[in-house]
């Protein structure tokens, strides 16, 4: 009953004219930018984050959430129609693009839209039920437990996003080191500032995000010299009743899987889609068709994608630890707006929390009623050639960086991070864990120093506390498993060479 009360309270806030407006704009702009080649949710959010600075707190967070969902839908549209995937829409390329080849683009887009709606709705029920309870669990966490949890998060994200624990962890640590730049809160000493006054407050989140994701992505596309052929097919959106009936079970399965995987550290949309797709391929009634353009292949993953995108807010808003790079960016946005995500967020900013939860569902409705019917017009974005697009994207990167402090020097920092991001990309190092490390770094240091202070420098504190001991044991097991696999791989490789 209390959930219903809370949700009603939330809708009261979300359904004000202003917030509805921000939500609608967020969804639409997010979709449009998300459609552009090379711009996934991460780059879209970092590009559009500065737009929300001048808005009131609740409006700006609602708009950002809208941008996130819009960008995800935009991603799946570009994946389905033209097979241009981003991290969050790889699976949509498989069956979605096959459906396009069969001339069923409209059906695929409708399926993706309606499945996202189903996934989002299920996830919001999970979010409303679980987030307050998890917030209470968070009070059982001491500084040592937080440290272990963050390390565990680094490990999961590193492995999931890059597939290589070593590379991912390296990026997370570089992020932590970048987070150290600035004034030390305990001693007041300026660290690694190179005597430059604008580094006293630390490196700006936006500079890193725009440099590593925006600029590096643009240069990557320039390097490959790819020219896109716009989609010119006809689109028939509405499915027939038997087709519609096939969407539901698969979407529900996907919603459940997505909701669960979204909560786990390192989880989130990417891994949820793969899991949902794999399960559909095994248990669906039409499993033989999957992979050749089946409705189920689109519905399940789209629902899981959306559900995981929403439930990944749970760890952020209840424990205060983002579990993937998008959430880390969201956390940055929360902090810029003066809201500290964590166990106290629900009690201190009750209207904001429940308003955000309710607006997620409103955002879903907008996606279905606005984006799905209008998708044929959105697709005209692809008719803009890349040679026109990329100077504009770079200009928006500049304006985005500048508008934070009205300081042109920040553009130099962004350019430097563009170069760094480019080098990392060429070395096949994924910047997503870096983002997480950068945001969590100061928290990790603070909690580590606190834990050490309490235990008088005794490292046993990490093993004596059950929560941190469990997490550290899991990390150790994982590392051992990685070592064993590497050993067997190299043995097999050397025996192949010998043969």
């Amino acid at each position, binding site marked *: 009953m209390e959930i219903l009360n809370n949700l009603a309270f939330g809708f009261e806030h979300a359904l004000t004219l202003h917030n509805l407006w921000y939500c609608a704009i967020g969804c639409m702009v997010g979709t449009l930018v998300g459609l552009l080649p090379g711009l996934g949710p991460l780059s879209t959010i970092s590009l559009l984050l500065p737009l929300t600075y001048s808005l009131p707190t609740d409006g700006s967070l609602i708009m950002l959430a809208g941008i996130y969902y819009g960008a995800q839908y935009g991603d799946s549209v570009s994946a389905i129609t033209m097979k241009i995937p981003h991290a969050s829409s790889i699976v949509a390329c498989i069956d979605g693009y096959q459906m396009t080849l069969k001339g069923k683009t409209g059906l695929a887009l409708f399926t993706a839209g309606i499945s996202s709606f189903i996934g989002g709705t299920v996830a919001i029920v999970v979010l409303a039920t679980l987030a307050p309870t998890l917030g209470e669990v968070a009070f059982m966490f001491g500084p040592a437990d937080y440290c272990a949890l963050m390390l565990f998060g680094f490990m999961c994200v590193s492995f999931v996003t890059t597939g290589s624990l070593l590379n991912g962890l390296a990026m997370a640590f570089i992020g932590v080191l970048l987070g150290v730049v600035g004034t030390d809160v305990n001693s007041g*000493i300026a660290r690694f500032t190179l005597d430059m006054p604008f580094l006293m407050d630390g490196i700006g989140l936006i500079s890193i995000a725009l440099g590593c994701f925006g600029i590096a992505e643009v240069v990557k596309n320039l390097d490959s010299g790819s020219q896109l052929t716009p989609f010119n097919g006809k689109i028939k959106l509405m499915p027939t009743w038997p087709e519609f009936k096939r969407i539901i079970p698969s979407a529900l399965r996907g919603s459940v899987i997505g909701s669960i995987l979204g909560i786990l550290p390192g989880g989130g949309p990417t891994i949820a889609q793969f899991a949902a797709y794999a399960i559909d391929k095994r248990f669906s009634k039409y499993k033989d068709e999957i992979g050749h353009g089946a409705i189920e292949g689109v519905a399940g993953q789209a629902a899981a994608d959306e559900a995981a995108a929403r439930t990944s807010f749970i760890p952020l808003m209840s424990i205060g630890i983002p579990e993937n790079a998008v959430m880390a960016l969201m956390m940055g946005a929360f902090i810029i707006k003066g809201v500290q995500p964590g166990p106290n967020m629900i009690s201190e900013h009750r209207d904001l929390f429940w308003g955000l939860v309710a607006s997620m569902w409103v955002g879903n409705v907008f996606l279905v009623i606005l984006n799905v019917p209008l998708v044929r017009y959105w697709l005209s974005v692809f008719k803009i050639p890349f040679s026109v697009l990329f100077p504009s994207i770079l200009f928006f990167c500049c304006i985005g960086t500048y508008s934070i402090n009205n300081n042109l020097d920040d553009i130099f920092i962004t350019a430097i991070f563009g170069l760094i991001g480019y080098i990392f990309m060429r070395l096949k190092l994924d910047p997503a864990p870096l983002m997480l490390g950068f945001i969590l770094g100061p928290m990790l240091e603070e909690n580590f120093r606190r834990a050490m202070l309490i235990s008088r420098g005794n490292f046993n504190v990490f093993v004596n506390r059950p929560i941190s001991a469990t997490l550290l044991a899991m990390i150790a097991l994982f590392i051992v498993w990685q070592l064993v696999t590497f050993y067997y791989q190299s043995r097999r490789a050397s025996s192949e060479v010998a043969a």
Partner: protein
Amino acid sequence: MNNMNLVRGIVLMAVALLFGIGSLNYQIGQFSRSGPGLFPLMVSCLLFLIGLISAVRSRFVKPVPLSYNARSIFFVLLGLCGFALISQHLNMIVGIVFLVFCVSGAGTSYSVVRNLKISAGLIVVAFMFRTLLGLQLPLF
């Protein structure tokens, strides 16, 4: 030498050394009462270790050549820095024109007319930002 895995390890170690040596300038302290240098030093050590493992491991796996194209990144960085400098000392409208003309050098084709059109469009957008969103852009 042209082995991406090896270069990666070396780059990681270099970053670790940069921060690690830098952190020695600050007070380290003890674990129970840590100074500002302790935490960065610890993280740098871990990062150095990872870099070392990567470099050593590259000896055992098949070498992957490192590919890069300096042209695009050069024009893009030049455009961004030029934009910032010109906006600082002259005004942003000239900055936008410079940005567009400079970064287009990285594209596959170059067209003055097209660049002029893009510049004009972006200047209009900048004016809209200024009037509608209230951004303080030094346009002229």
